[in-house]
């Protein structure tokens, strides 16, 4: 009986260890997959984003770092759930990670009223 219990316990330990190893490897793989290999720095200023057009790889995450040179702006990618405030000059930056699901053109715009030329603040992310 004791021998049987020892074998079961040992097998259970091996199972747990194996499960943990698989989970760790899977997690590492997922982390590696989610780690953005594409980084884009965008500056926002009345009334433009620079760059206002850039290319990324579809199906892979892109890290978009936004900083303002004047007032606070908005950054919204149309037809997605991304919509953030870009802090005022000197108040830091905001980073957005976006994974375009398929190739195409994704329009982004300033979503916070920033002045007379607010409507001109648009750009395009091109996923290839």
């Amino acid at each position, binding site marked *: 009986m004791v021998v049987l219990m020892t074998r079961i316990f040992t097998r259970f330990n091996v199972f747990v260890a194996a499960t943990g190893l698989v989970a760790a490897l899977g997690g590492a793989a997922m982390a590696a997959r*989610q780690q953005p290999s594409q980084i884009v720095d965008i*500056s926002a200023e*009345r*009334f*433009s984003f*620079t*760059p*206002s*057009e850039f290319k990324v790889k579809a199906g892979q*995450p892109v890290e978009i770092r936004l900083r*303002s*040179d*004047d*007032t606070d702006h*908005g*950054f*919204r990618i*149309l*037809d*997605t*759930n*991304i*919509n*953030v*405030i870009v*802090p*005022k*000059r*000197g*108040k*830091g*930056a*905001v*980073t*957005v*990670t*976006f*994974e*375009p*699901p398929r190739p195409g*053109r994704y*329009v982004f715009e300033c*979503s*916070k*009223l*920033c*002045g*007379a*030329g*607010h*409507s*001109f603040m*648009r*750009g*395009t992310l091109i996923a290839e």
Partner: protein
Amino acid sequence: MAALVTAVPLQAQTPAAPAPTERTTGISGYMDFHFNKPEFDDGRLDFHRFVLLITHNFSDRIRFVSELELEHAFVEGQEDAGELELEQAYVDFLLSRRFNLRAGMMLVPIGIINERHEPPVYYGVERPFVDTVIIPSTWFEAGVGVHGEVGRGWRYRAFVMSPLNAREFSAEEGVRNGRQKGSDTNIGRPAFTGRLEFVGVPGLTAGGSFWTGRSGFEFRPRFDVPVAIGEADARYSRDRLELRAQFAHVAISNAGDLNDALGRAVGVDPNVARAMRGWYGEASYRVISGTHAGDIGLFTRYESFDTQFRMPDGYLPLEEFDRDAVVFGGTYWPDPDIAIKVDYSIIRSRSSVVVAPNSFNVGLGWWF
């Protein structure tokens, strides 16, 4: 689709605030409060501008934008007493990044200041002289047009708008008083205006603009007074340094006939020029930046502007209107949207008789 948002403020990591979503109505505005002390005269305290912007997104593709401005705090029916102006009220049909439609009351896309005139974004209590007497900022008219952006930062606007009214041109202020301002305007012969600018390099905005229209519609018998305006400008900022330059030229054809007609109508020959010209260069530097107490920037600007640059045959230029100005001072931003400004303006003209007064100016402007 995966999306992740992180904010990285200077002091601590906090989540980004949610921004407005589609189908929203927004209200914003700016104000401009001035103290001006001209040489040889008493100081003046003036609540120069109170401006409200109201926008509404009908959808991602259709957007309404308006800008209502009260100048000099009080409206009595004369411009000197104050003005209530509808500077913008248009609907944008945003079809694509490259091509969009706009209709309504719109800003003329010319120069640095006309489309970008919120007080915290320019140095000096008053706007540059070139952006006042050569380019009549704030210049807005009713019209329709297209705009968009192509490539990596090439942006264009092309509008059909109401023309200037030559009956209101003057020697001192050029075409400024000829703006119809979208009020029951004559559109018998519409004006055309456009701008091409490049914003593809961080910190750089460079552009060129034009305006062309026929302005003699109020005269009987009618005769043509074609007006053409060309303009080029550039802004460049890197770290704390910012440089600006602008050049503008106004050409008025048939200026001699215009002077004759105005002389017959009002009894005084207005001496309107056939060409006006102005340019300026400005350098500024933020001597303090990124502190808790805010930023401080110093600037100097040289301007040359002449509303009698070339005269029609038989007319001599009045030298008092050939002017130069040096403006220097500073701005303190306790917040990026609040500007406390101080400057001193030295103006000289070619005339030895008519002296342009220097002035000391203090301003408080803010945007919300």
